[in-house]
């Protein structure tokens, strides 16, 4: 038996204080297996020890919330006995080390979180952040991640309908891969992970356990250094075919009255799934590890408990349905085994070769994990000083639309099956949010991912507020009523005061905006230690927003027709600090645009109601965000292959500020009747400005410049292919 010493404790990422606490809980020294279990259960990844104190402050309930954070995923009510299950989760660390498998297993993991609850996944999205295109690794990481996401979702047959992909040097050595999944479930057929009933069997199903991914959760809770790539064996390998079989077999079994509790074996595998299920149900567990299906010979209890082999599920079932359960899994060719039993003891008792090899109290381990109030301090932000550049309006527009962040993402989304399941009405290149029909109905779900790390770096609270507001706006622009969000908080090392400040401020920002917009947080994920050799990523709290559309045909997307008029809803002040325009001019300093949540609500409510009441007048709608009015208009022209005659209002003195300013709470509404919108806006005291007419095949700013839409499309479409094929 290995004697536990200081070195072993620290290698498990456990601090001295934490080790003391472990000894207090156990009233003795742990053995290696037990120490391993503590280390994964108390890792940042599983325990949220640095953030839990702040996450608790977020608004998580509401009229439409069926299940908030704490379960496998959040659930909202969409009426007609139907509910939407959704969550976003990061797979940042593994994707940097092994981009294809890292991203693929990220998608697999989030889909399991959703279908574990009884839902059928209906759409996947992802939010990706890569380093500078000039960084030698970026190309390979981009290709690998996109292929990994595509291959996994395509094989399982769930459409990947949207997301975002951006490049910035702060991600050079820590890319971000955040995967989001939404699923549809009948309200009375939701499954939870609360284990119950002494004597009930615990069934393991899915892939056989191997030595892959041992301590993956611990890896995701440490900074990278020069040797990080040596952790490649900690990255799991994905098998989407196995996932498809698990999905279909679980759906089949869920029709029977067999499952009491179910949870996927994700991070920290068998350990976290068994502990969490037992803890929620306040019961005990006996596990017989000899029964665990193993892929490799001579696996030790330590390895079995900590393995992160993918595509595995753990469930507690009714004893009377054991035969039926095993029959269903056999039909699908899946390995299933009874590996344990629920007890009343409140303890986890682990047996191997007929002897007790570990015994741990479940509640203290799962619930009394450390909670830190880490010190925080506002960082002093050093801005890179570079010589300023000057651009004309035309050259700035061309520069922005042909830049990596604003180029057409066709190269990416063509690799994603967006049409399987036949319910994709708009994928995210066609509309501000993706719009997915609720099968067999005219209802639809709108879904979007948003974050502006440039804003968040300068002011994490305001940046996070803007992220929430933008997702809300994107849903409204697609004709939806926003309902709730999931968040994926990506930051550096929380043990550093400046990073902790960013985390706390960002959570405050999310709280402020979500409370104001009545837009609760129903699920989420935290990814910390995204830093390498002391250099952290920009704070990146990604918001995944979900809304409901009563009649899918009222969702208009980014459409416009010849002769339509385009109006700006909201106030334009010309805020250029931290805008795309200032950034191409090398002016990387300043504050994000101010956000007035009252105005956000006012403008959003106007657009939402106008689209509902005067639906036949509205051809399309687009929010104004990065790049300002001019980029929003250019995107419309490119999308529709149609020209625009744009007239800058005569009272505007500085047209660059006005065109490129990134003021918040604004929309472009494309309508075929200008009288009605003017009348309604006036009545409701909404700032409305006519800006353009859809006409011809040129993008023309009167008295400034014109360019053919064909040329714009060309500028917008070349970057990715050139970058990849170079």
């Amino acid at each position, binding site marked *: 038996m290995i004697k536990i010493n200081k070195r072993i404790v620290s290698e498990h990422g456990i601090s001295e204080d934490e080790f003391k606490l472990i000894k207090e809980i156990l009233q003795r020294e742990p053995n290696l297996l037990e120490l391993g279990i503590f280390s994964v259960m108390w890792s940042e990844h599983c325990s949220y020890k640095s953030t839990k104190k702040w996450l608790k402050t977020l608004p998580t309930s509401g009229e439409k919330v069926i299940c908030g954070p704490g379960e496998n995923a959040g659930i909202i009510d969409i009426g007609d006995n139907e509910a939407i299950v959704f969550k976003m989760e990061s797979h940042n660390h593994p994707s940097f080390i092994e981009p294809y498998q890292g991203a693929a297993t990220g998608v697999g993991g989030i889909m399991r979180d959703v279908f574990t609850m009884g839902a059928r996944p209906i759409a996947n999205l992802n939010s990706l952040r890569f380093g500078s295109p000039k960084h030698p690794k970026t190309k390979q990481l981009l290709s690998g991640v996109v292929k990994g996401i595509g291959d996994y979702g395509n094989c399982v*047959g769930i459409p990947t309908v949207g997301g975002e992909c951006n490049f910035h040097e702060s991600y050079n050595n820590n890319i971000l891969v955040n995967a989001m999944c939404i699923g549809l479930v009948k309200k009375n057929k939701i499954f939870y992970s609360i284990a119950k009933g002494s004597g009930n069997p615990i069934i393991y199903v899915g892939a056989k356990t191997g030595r892959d991914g041992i301590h993956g959760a611990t890896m995701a809770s440490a900074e990278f250094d020069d040797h990080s790539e040596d952790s490649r064996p900690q990255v799991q390998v994905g098998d989407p075919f196995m996932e*498809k079989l698990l999905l*279909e077999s679980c759906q089949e079994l869920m029709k029977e009255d067999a499952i009491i509790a179910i949870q996927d074996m994700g991070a920290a595998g068998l350990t976290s799934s068994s502990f969490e299920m037992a803890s929620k149900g306040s019961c005990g567990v006996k596990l017989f590890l000899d029964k665990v299906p193993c892929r490799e010979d001579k696996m030790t209890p330590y390895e079995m408990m900590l393995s992160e082999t993918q595509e595995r599920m753990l469930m507690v079932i009714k004893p009377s349905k054991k035969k039926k359960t095993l029959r269903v899994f056999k039909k699908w060719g899946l390995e299933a085994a009874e590996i344990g039993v629920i007890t009343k003891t409140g303890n986890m008792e682990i047996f191997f070769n007929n002897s007790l090899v570990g015994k741990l109290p479940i509640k203290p381990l799962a619930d009394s994990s450390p909670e830190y109030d880490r010190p925080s301090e506002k960082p002093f932000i050093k801005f890179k000083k570079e010589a300023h550049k000057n651009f004309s309006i035309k050259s700035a527009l061309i520069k922005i639309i042909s830049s990596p962040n604003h180029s057409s993402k066709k190269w990416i989304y063509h690799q*994603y099956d967006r049409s399987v399941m036949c*319910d994709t009405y708009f994928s995210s290149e066609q509309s501000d949010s993706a719009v997915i029909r609720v099968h067999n109905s005219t209802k639809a779900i709108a879904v979007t991912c948003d974050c502006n790390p440039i804003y968040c770096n300068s002011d994490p609270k305001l940046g996070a507020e803007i992220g929430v507001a933008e997702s809300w706006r994107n849903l409204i622009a697609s004709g939806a009523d926003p309902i709730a969000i999931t968040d994926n908080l990506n930051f550096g090392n929380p043990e550093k005061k400046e990073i902790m400040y960013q985390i706390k401020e960002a959570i405050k920002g999310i709280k402020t905006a979500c409370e104001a917009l009545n837009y609760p947080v129903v699920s989420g994920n935290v990814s910390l230690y995204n830093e390498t050799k002391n250099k952290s990523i920009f704070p990146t709290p990604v918001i995944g927003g979900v809304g409901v559309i009563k009649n899918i045909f009222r969702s208009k997307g980014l459409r416009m027709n010849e002769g339509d008029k385009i109006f700006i809803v909201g106030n334009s002040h010309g805020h250029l600090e931290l805008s795309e325009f200032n950034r191409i001019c090398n002016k990387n300093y300043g504050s994000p645009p101010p956000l007035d949540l009252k105005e956000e609500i006012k403008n959003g409510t106007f657009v939402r109601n106008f689209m509902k009441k005067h639906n036949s007048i509205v051809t399309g709608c687009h929010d104004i965000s990065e790049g300002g009015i001019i980029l929003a208009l250019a995107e419309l022209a490119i999308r529709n292959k149609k020209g625009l005659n744009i007239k800058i209002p005569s009272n505007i003195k500085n047209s660059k500020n006005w065109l490129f300013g990134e003021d918040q709470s604004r929309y472009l509404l494309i309508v075929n009747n200008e009288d009605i919108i003017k009348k309604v806006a006036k009545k409701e005291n909404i700032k409305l400005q006519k800006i353009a007419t859809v006409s011809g095949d040129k993008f023309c700013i009167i008295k400034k410049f014109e360019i053919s839409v064909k040329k714009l499309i060309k500028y917008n479409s070349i970057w990715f292919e050139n970058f990849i094929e170079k």
Partner: protein
Amino acid sequence: MPKKVVSIVVFPGSNCDRDLDIAVQKYMNVNTELVWHDDPNIKNQEMIFIPGGFSFGDYLRSGALATKSPAMKEVIRLSKKGVPIIGICNGFQILTECKLLDGALIDNCKRLFICKENFVKIENKNNPFTKNIHKNVVQFPIAHAQGRFYTSEDNLKRLEDNNQIVFKYSSRDGKINKSENPNGSMNNIAGIINKNKNILGLMPHPERAINFSEDNDGISFFRGLQNLL
């Protein structure tokens, strides 16, 4: 009169079976039976569909493992008796792997999965599968990693001489050229039939072109198949 019943063979890893089932029932006015791959008997022999997806994960060659399924052995037997058989996407790959159709479907020229709307020209209507489609160019989504049709020059000539090439990737107005070829298929081939004209394989997905509008071209594809029953 009770509705006729057509069969859809489902493999572990099929993922277009539900979509196909809906399209067939709705627009062919029939009932369907989903036949699990290990069933050696196919009761309903009016018409058999092989749906898209990733049968057995397609980790080997697309469609290769599916050929070993008991249901496929039965499909092969029934095909010789003239039963109409339609394979879409992975179904087409399986039919070529079974040698029920000529050629092979290999990696797309850029070696990437590709999903997009594509125009497809109906190259000939001299067969029961396409003779009732009024349009000459239809729009169907494609979604595959291995859809590049390949065969020997001799075989290609034979396919052309026998009017076995049914669908070709094209422009909106039916022009066949390289720029409209999404995957590098020989002669832009998107779908072919066998010599006896009872087996059709195509890479594009007509079952994904029936939604949100009554003008969608998948509808006329499935309606047109009714004459085969």
